[in-house]
């Protein structure tokens, strides 16, 4: 009987602690939503919007990489599928933003399945190379798509984002739209992580062989996680197309894919604050340090090496570990001098 009590209290503790992991993210996002009140520069808002659009894709990558342990090096291609879906829907069918979101999500999911089914037959490094190759392949298809995809020069997005008849094109409004989408992505990612589905994905990450022995269809779930991450990427792509107003194949090639992987590694993929931190750091660091593109690439490389060596679970996990260590140290010191404690 005692064991059952224990079980119940354990699940209660778990639900509290899982809410506790969501709260900091919501607080940070709430604070970020207040930014337009301080009349920031357009430059700042543009950067923040691009960061936010990346962060949406990063929440998908955190399910894939953080939970399932699969790294995709072609993720920008799935963002591209979303962006091109939105641009084509607007051009050929006069379909606007809000319908594009689910359609692009589905399109990216389909492409993720097409990439995932053959690629996930191999694992580890081989899979990384496969995703990289598929990313390049998509760029080639888009570049050679003739008038349909606008070839190398890409497509224009002629429509604005509207909501309740209001135009959301002004930067502060578009910024708030992106913050709202980041919030939805963060909550969706959180819900996946704390579901039994999330636990299944972690089981695969921790021990594939054992997961299969316990009846988990490892292959199917890996493809599933890749498809889920594709949906996030597709949505991110729609926002990108509506923000940039012009998209071209180069934006979805290998470098943007590497940046996405870099952001999720620097921020940390397992904790909910990780994608937020990674997206913001990588987008703003060159700006804050006033670096040109070549210097910033060098910086990114150095950062990635530093993170892999010193903070393998990302910046946020590193800070959390540092904090626990500090708390433990500060607790230990007074306890050592406390006679009544020693007497116990």
């Amino acid at each position, binding site marked *: 009987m005692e*064991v059952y009590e224990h*079980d119940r209290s354990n699940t209660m503790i778990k639900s509290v602690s899982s809410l506790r992991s969501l709260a900091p993210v919501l607080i940070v996002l709430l604070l970020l939503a207040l930014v337009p009140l301080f009349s920031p520069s357009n430059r700042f808002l543009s950067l923040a919007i691009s960061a936010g659009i990346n962060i949406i894709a990063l929440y998908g990558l955190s399910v894939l990489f953080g939970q399932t342990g699969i790294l995709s090096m072609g993720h920008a291609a799935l963002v591209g599928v979303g962006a091109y879906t939105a641009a084509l829907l607007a051009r050929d069918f006069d379909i606007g933003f809000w319908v594009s979101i689910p359609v692009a999500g589905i399109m990216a999911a389909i492409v993720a399945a097409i990439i995932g089914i053959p690629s996930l037959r191999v694992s580890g490094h081989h899979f990384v190379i496969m995703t990289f190759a598929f990313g390049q392949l998509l760029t080639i298809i888009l570049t050679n798509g003739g008038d349909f995809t606008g070839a190398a020069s890409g497509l224009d997005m002629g429509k604005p984002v509207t909501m309740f008849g209001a135009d959301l094109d002004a930067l502060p409004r578009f910024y708030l739209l992106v913050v709202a989408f980041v919030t939805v992505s963060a909550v969706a990612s959180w819900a996946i992580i704390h579901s039994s589905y999330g636990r299944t994905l972690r089981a695969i990450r*921790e021990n594939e062989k054992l*997961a299969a*022995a316990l*009846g988990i269809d490892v292959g199917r779930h890996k493809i599933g996680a890749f498809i889920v991450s594709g949906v996030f990427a597709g949505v991110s792509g729609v926002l990108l197309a509506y923000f940039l107003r012009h998209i071209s194949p180069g934006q979805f090639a290998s470098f943007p894919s590497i940046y996405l992987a870099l952001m999720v590694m620097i921020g940390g993929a397992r904790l909910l604050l990780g994608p937020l931190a990674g997206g913001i750091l990588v987008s703003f660091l060159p700006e804050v340090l006033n670096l040109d593109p070549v210097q910033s690439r060098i910086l990114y490389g150095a950062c990635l090496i530093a993170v892999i060596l010193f903070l393998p679970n990302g910046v946020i996990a590193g800070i959390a570990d540092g904090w626990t260590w500090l708390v433990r140290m500060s607790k230990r010191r007074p306890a050592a001098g406390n006679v009544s404690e020693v007497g116990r």
Partner: protein
Amino acid sequence: MNAILDIKGLRKHFGGVTALSGVDLAINEGEILGVVGPNGSGKTTLFNVVTGVHKPTAGTVTWKGKDITGIPANQISGNGIGYTFQQAMAFPGLTVLENVQIATEHSAASTRTDFAWPTPAALLDFVGISGLAREKAGILPFGSLRLLGLALALATRPSLLLLDEPAAGLNDRETAALVGLVQQFPAHGISVCVIDHDMKLMQMLCKRLAVLDFGAKIADGPTADVLHDKKVLEVYLGGEL
């Protein structure tokens, strides 16, 4: 005796290496069968082929009258065959309770409703590690990790448990505790097949032994007889005493 699992003419080649060269083996309902043999004799390969980790080169595996030769690893537990690994016993980054929860969640395909340990808590209690439920499996001492591995295999509600060197790395006290657990399984409707080369353990656990050498079965029968078999003694001791 009813054979619950019937292995016929099972062969497995890895390139030019023959790991199993036509093994026949029947596991009877309600027994604890031991499979022994020197390193490299094909014991683990036998398990891996039965459990779908490897596809056999030839031969059949019949489970309760149904041909299950070469079915995928993740469908084995759904059929009611549980197994433990020599290494890789648990999910190190997850808590002990989460480990067992995952194992119970995916046993839905299993048909057994009359199971002695229906919940994760009951399973942890049975193997005696419920006090560690909230610890990460990765920090468990080796003995507890083996017990967790056993709990995970049990969580799939098997009718047959395949144990791959369940006592490797355990001290005498831990081994005795493990033997105590395994001996209870037949009464709960779980037949057992153990592979190990620890003869002391096998004598404690098994009434029947099968001996593999170079991928072939060289003896099969009551434990006492097998241990005095001429061929077995040759394999183990290099000749008669």
